[in-house]
């Protein structure tokens, strides 16, 4: 039993070995395969790890790059904001015009009217410098530069701005607000409101300006003290006559007498403004023009000393200081000088009506070389314009009546025209003036004016 058992086991073992032989060969194959697969996997894993590492390295670089660009961006933003964080602003504005004028009885000519740049320098909301130059090309091709105004404005509080320097006269509205050519609806200034007319143009001194509510009426004001104007006289033999008021912002007060004045504007309803202006003080004759018979000879004035001795010489009368005495204007009497003005403007949509009256009165002088009676200059105009709805055409019409002490300068004028608004501040104007003055005088000649004005 035991032996048989033993044999049986043996046989079984042999059988088992014999049968398992091919199987073990198969297991070897599988093992190899597995091993290969594992190797492949390991390799892939390695590759993956490598590329992940590379990716991470790359990302690190990218992060640094992004950080760098964020820093750069922050810097750029900060730099781009610089203009908003400086305490000083510099700004250029102004206007220019070119044109063509044709007077009846003479040939027309092109003209460059003027280039009037305005410089603004501003320190926060506290101080502002305003300056306008007027650059004009004259008939003979010469260029004239005039300092139209130069003021330093100090914003004292919400209701008062203090203005010092040379400013446009606050009397009335034409000079301070309407004269720039992109604003004026006609191609010319109304007679009396230009230079040497009834309305003062500018002055040198101190001014306070601002606005406040007076109940429901908004009120604006301008009050000033200034050197005031000087006077011109004409001499015809021993006779002297007041010729004109030089109110062009003189930086010398020949008579030492200041002028005070101002304007009060009331806005009872938003579409209407009414203004009242006055100025009063003294003015003195500082120059004499010599008249030769009918014809007025252009005379040049020169200053022979600093005390106000002002002389005049006719062309060819010799050079200053060569013995020509000129006129001794040491003892001229300061005359009363009074200005009165009223103005209004009313707007409704594209309709605008405005008007203005001004009178400048100079009193008599009883002593001094040029002693003569007083004189007054007076002018008024009314103007209406209408921007035709849904178009860019704006017809406008203005009537002016200017009275001066010299009948050759008196003028009544109808000016009418049509404007084309290329933009709200680029305006092409065609104006015709019907002028009525002393027969034969320039004040009597009708004119066509074409103007292209650009306010910038």
């Amino acid at each position, binding site marked *: 039993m035991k032996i048989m058992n033993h044999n049986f086991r043996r046989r079984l073992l042999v059988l088992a070995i014999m049968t398992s032989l091919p199987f073990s060969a198969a297991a070897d194959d599988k093992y190899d395969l597995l091993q290969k697969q594992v190797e492949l996997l390991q390799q892939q894993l390695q590759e993956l790890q490598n590329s992940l590492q590379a990716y991470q390295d790359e990302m690190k670089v990218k992060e640094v790059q992004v950080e760098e660009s964020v820093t750069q961006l922050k810097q750029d933003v900060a730099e781009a904001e610089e203009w908003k964080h400086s305490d000083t602003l510099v700004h250029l504005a102004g206007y220019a015009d070119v044109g063509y004028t044709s007077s009846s009885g003479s040939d027309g000519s092109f003209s460059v009217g003027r280039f009037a740049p305005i410089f603004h320098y501003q320190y926060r*909301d506290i101080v*502002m410098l305003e300056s306008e130059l007027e650059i004009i090309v004259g008939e003979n091709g010469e260029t004239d530069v005039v300092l139209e105004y130069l003021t330093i404005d100090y914003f004292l509080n919400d*209701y008062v701005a203090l203005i010092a320097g040379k400013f446009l006269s606050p009397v009335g509205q034409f000079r301070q607000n309407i004269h720039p050519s992109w604003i004026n609806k006609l191609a010319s200034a109304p007679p009396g409101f230009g230079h040497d007319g009834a309305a003062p143009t500018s002055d040198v001194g101190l001014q306070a300006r601002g606005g406040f509510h007076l109940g429901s009426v908004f009120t604006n*004001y301008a009050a000033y003290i200034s050197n005031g104007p000087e006077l011109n006289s004409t001499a015809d033999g021993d006779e002297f006559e007041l010729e004109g008021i030089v109110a062009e912002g003189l930086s010398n007060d020949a008579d030492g007498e200041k002028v005070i004045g101002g304007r009060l504007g009331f806005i009872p309803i938003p579409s209407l*403004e009414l203004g009242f202006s006055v100025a009063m003080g003294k003015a003195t004759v500082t120059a004499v023009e010599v008249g030769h018979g009918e014809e007025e000879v252009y005379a040049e004035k020169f200053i022979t000393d600093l005390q106000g001795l002002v002389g005049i010489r006719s062309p060819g009368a010799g050079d200053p200081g060569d013995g020509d005495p000129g006129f001794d204007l040491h003892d001229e009497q300061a005359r009363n000088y009074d200005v009165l003005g009223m103005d209004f403007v009313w707007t409704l949509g594209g309709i605008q009506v405005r008007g203005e009256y001004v009178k400048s009165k100079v009193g008599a002088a009883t002593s001094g070389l040029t002693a003569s009676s007083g004189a007054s200059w007076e002018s008024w105009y009314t103007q209406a314009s209408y921007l035709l709805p849904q178009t860019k055409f704006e017809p406008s019409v203005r009537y002016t009546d200017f009275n001066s002490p010299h009948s050759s300068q008196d003028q009544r004028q109808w000016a009418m025209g049509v404007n084309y608004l290329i933009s*709200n501040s680029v305006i092409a104007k065609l104006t015709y003036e019907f002028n009525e003055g002393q027969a034969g005088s320039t004040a009597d000649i009708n004119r066509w004016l074409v103007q292209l004005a650009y306010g910038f």
Partner: protein
Amino acid sequence: MKKNTRNTIRFLFTVNAILLGLSMSATVSATHFPEPGDPIAGAKLWATTCSRCHNARDPADLRDDQWISTAFHMRVRAGLTGQQTRDVLTFMQNSNVPISVEPLVFKGNTQPGSEASNLSGSEVYAQTCIACHGSNGKGSVPGAPNFTDPQGVLSQSDELLFSRVKNGFKSPGSAMAMPPKGGNNKLNDADIRAVIEYMKKSY
């Protein structure tokens, strides 16, 4: 790991977007002086005061900083108070954003609930639009359309009107533009929809 990197990138781009948003909103806001005024009062002043002496100037004529100098120049010329100057200035600076460019808005800036209108259409109209369009809708400044015209601008689709009120609009050859949101940056989309509905109903 990968998720972390992605988050980092997302974070950095968000920072980027915030910075961009900041720089965009900064170009819309003013200098550090003067302090901002009330644009609604400013629009009224602009419609009534700024055409008294000369043709009203389009807000788009000048850049924000240029408007500062001009506003102070006009304060002196027109006898405005300091407050009026700031009001007009803020209105001009709000209204000169380029037309039909959707301002880039960083979504994170939107405060919860700010999309709901707090105002009725008639309130929006009376506060912001009346200055130029008038209480009767016929327009009170040159260039403003007549809303009462049955074939007029209000016969256009709500969507078109919405985008023109929101982004501003200037028709070809027009001298004056409709400022974005009427110059009042506080108006949100719901306010604009409310006022359009109100205008269509009333005119």
